[in-house]
């Protein structure tokens, strides 16, 4: 197992090199010359030339790529171009609010979806199954923006149940701020989750071993919760774990509309101001997250499924 993990970790090297390349090519082309923006509306040509030199934009492309690679491996992201802040600090400060929103929302929506899909699987083919399925699909067929606009106006403003926007780190006040965006998150993700979980569970329900379990005289609920779920959990774990790195990225729209000072808003800001170092940092961070959680999901997969051995 150690060998397997080491091998997978070593695989990060080529992937990170590739990610660095994509990031470099994309943002190099996108960001073009950032100096005009960084210096404000009254900048002089001389000043811009100086800044280009300072930012290392006059170096050869190869060396600039190497810089990206270097920061991908050292996690030393330097300073933001537009805010002049230290990026690692920005990320640390932004991570907390982002996670405050995303983690509870993610956990609740996953658990809720699992419960719903078990109910749906139990009543498969019956009216309630169809109803919940259509309901879920309907839920995911509405744009996130529409949810945000309406929920914020209705629940936070009209009914006054939640704070309209903002964020406070302190518990329990944090709840009143993140509850509404979290609910929107849940509404948005329950549809795809239930759809996936249901398929997986139904795939299992028609397996031979379920027939064996029935022949043993086990009650249907036990069969579902013990035999079916345990097997269905294997693909579900992969599906769930692989989503975790995206939690760090936060929810772009939600953070913007609810004024949550998280990483989503930060990324958006960076994109809007051609802040290459910040975009680079976020892309690298989420790629590393993706790789690590990919590995984690493989390990969990192996633990959940005795048939699979590390090789």
């Amino acid at each position, binding site marked *: 197992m150690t060998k397997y993990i080491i091998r997978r970790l070593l695989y990060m090297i080529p992937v990170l090199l590739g990610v660095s390349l994509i990031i470099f090519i994309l943002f190099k082309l996108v960001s073009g010359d950032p100096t*005009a923006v960084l210096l404000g509306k009254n900048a002089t040509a001389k000043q811009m030339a100086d800044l280009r030199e300072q930012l290392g934009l006059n170096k050869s492309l190869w060396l600039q790529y190497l810089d990206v690679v270097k920061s991908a491996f050292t996690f030393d992201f330097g300073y933001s171009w537009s*805010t002049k802040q230290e990026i690692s600090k920005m990320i640390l400060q932004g991570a907390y609010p982002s996670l405050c929103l995303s983690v509870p929302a993610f956990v609740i929506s996953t658990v809720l979806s699992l419960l719903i899909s078990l109910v749906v699987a139990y009543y498969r083919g019956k009216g309630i199954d169809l109803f919940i399925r259509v309901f879920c699909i309907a839920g995911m067929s509405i744009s996130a923006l529409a949810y945000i606009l309406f929920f914020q*106006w209705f629940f936070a403003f009209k009914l006054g149940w939640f704070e309209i926007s903002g964020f406070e780190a302190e518990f329990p006040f944090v709840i009143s701020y993140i509850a509404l965006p979290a609910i929107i998150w849940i509404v948005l993700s329950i549809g795809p989750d239930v759809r996936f979980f249901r398929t997986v569970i139904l795939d299992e329900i028609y397996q031979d071993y379920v027939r064996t379990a029935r022949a043993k005289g086990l009650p249907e609920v036990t069969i579902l919760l013990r035999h079916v779920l345990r097997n269905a959990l294997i693909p579900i774990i992969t599906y769930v774990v692989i989503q975790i790195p995206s939690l760090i990225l936060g929810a772009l729209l939600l953070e913007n509309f609810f*004024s949550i000072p998280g990483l989503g808003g930060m990324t958006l800001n960076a994109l*809007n101001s051609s802040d290459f170092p910040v975009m680079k940092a976020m892309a690298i961070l989420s790629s590393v997250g993706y790789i690590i959680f990919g590995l984690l999901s493989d390990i969990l997969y192996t633990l959940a499924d005795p048939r699979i051995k590390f090789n």
Partner: protein
Amino acid sequence: MKAAVLLIGLLCLIISCSKDRNFDERELHLISPEKIAGFDPIQASDMYSGNEIGKVYEGLFEFHPLKRPYELMPNLADALPSVSADGLTYTIKLKQGVLFHDSPAFKEGKGRELKADDVIYSIKRLADPKLQAKGWWLLDDKIIGLNEWREKNVAAPATTYDEEIEGLKKIDALTVAFKLKKPYPQFLYALAMPYAFIVPKEAVEHFGKEFLNHPVGTGPFILPVFQQSNRIVYTKNPTFREKLYPSEGEEGDDKRGLLADAGKKIPLVDKIIVDIIVESQPKWLSFQKARADLLEIPKDNFDSAVLGGKELAPELKSKGIRLFANAQLDVTFFAFNHDDPLFKNKKLRQAMSMAWDRGEANKLFYNSAAVEAQSVIPPGLGGYRKEFRNPFIKYDLDMAKKLLAEAGYPNGKGLPAITIQTRNETVSRQIIEHFAKNLEKIGITIKVGMNTWPELVNKVTKRQHQMYTMAWGADYPDAENFLGLLYCPNASPGSNGSNYCNQDFDTLFKTATLLQDGPERSAFYEKLNETVAVDSPWIFGFHRTKFYLSQAWLKNFKFMEFNHSQFQYLNVDLEVKKELSKKF
């Protein structure tokens, strides 16, 4: 059933988690629509950063909060400076006993007194090539020896601040003398801008790269640490000097109750809480929930706030909410890229200008509250003449068609589609859509090019555009700031993004800018403004109006274009707040 009870219980729990209102402290709740990068004055290029920096830092001069037209008054300076006869030497004496905020950067953590050295240090910092200050343009090529010092330090491993500069001299511990290369009538305005606010050397050195998160100024409020967050909480500076609320203002200010606090020691509130809310819906909803005391009305919420452009909606009125409408010192425009041979054709420019129904645009986008721009200079600045009418901004389709035919494109025949670059904002897009719709009537096809702000700036500075649209807001109350937008030497990458060049204009402009403020200069400005208007270098848009709503308990608010120091004068009436809050 159980689930329902559980859900309701959960909901109650969430609701109970909200914080109660505070009616015991004088808290000022504000909303800022943009993220704050940091608290380094030399980088404060936009109004919103300036607003925040102005709460903790101060400059030598500030604009009078009540008097209009805008008038400078001494702030950290003891009095307005004495200027030498040639207008090149400014001697400034500082107030005595001004203390910096307490900070670990100082010995024993106690804020020390402000000295002339701090002024010199802060100005040098603005010129420091390593810091790439956004405000450098203000002093570029203005102070004797400063540019040379900057050049010298470009290649040096670290900037040396010790070297004395001829144009930046300490006379005594509290007196500084600036020597200018050439007359610079806007110099005092420059010193009043956030870029030139005074920072202590100790703090800069102590915090290093983190200085921008540890503001240490002399201002009325303190903020020990700035975190990248959407809420900034300032508290009153306990060691703030004896600064009093002004006892005179514009005519009628006493009737408006703006002089009620005259002579009181400022700041008047104990705390300022600034929430950063980007989207307009939550902004508006928050204000309506009394989560904010003052709101710059997002354009699109105007209808629901104001009826018919004048009256406030009754449900807002009943809560005591007041509306403030004020002309802004700005101008919006569609700029041609004069590098493009197509736009050398004056008749084409004029035809396009005349095909745009500005009245309708005003109604759609500015609630009919904006002033149609006849030329570049906005009302309220010397050089603007109310009576002046630019014949080529009139909406006249026949005339436009005629001009277009004369330009060589009868009914738009032979004219390629023209792309207008703009920022990726909903309203910007809609304005161009409106423009395009209008121009279609005379047979001209307009396309929209959406850009992030950096992209737009890049396209303009690199001259990679046919046309673009933007708004220019005043940096200081001097028409030079606007006329310079058409000055040939300012062409891209400078502020003249349209690359307009007109020799007559340039010569005249050069002479005018060397003059001190006065009727003579205003006459020059008027001439510049009106001759250039007819040439239609841009398609002039509007001088916009800004709307503010304030809660009944907010006192002393008066619209200010350069409002970074305004907040210390605001006050909150707790009695009224307690009373009215029941209505929300």
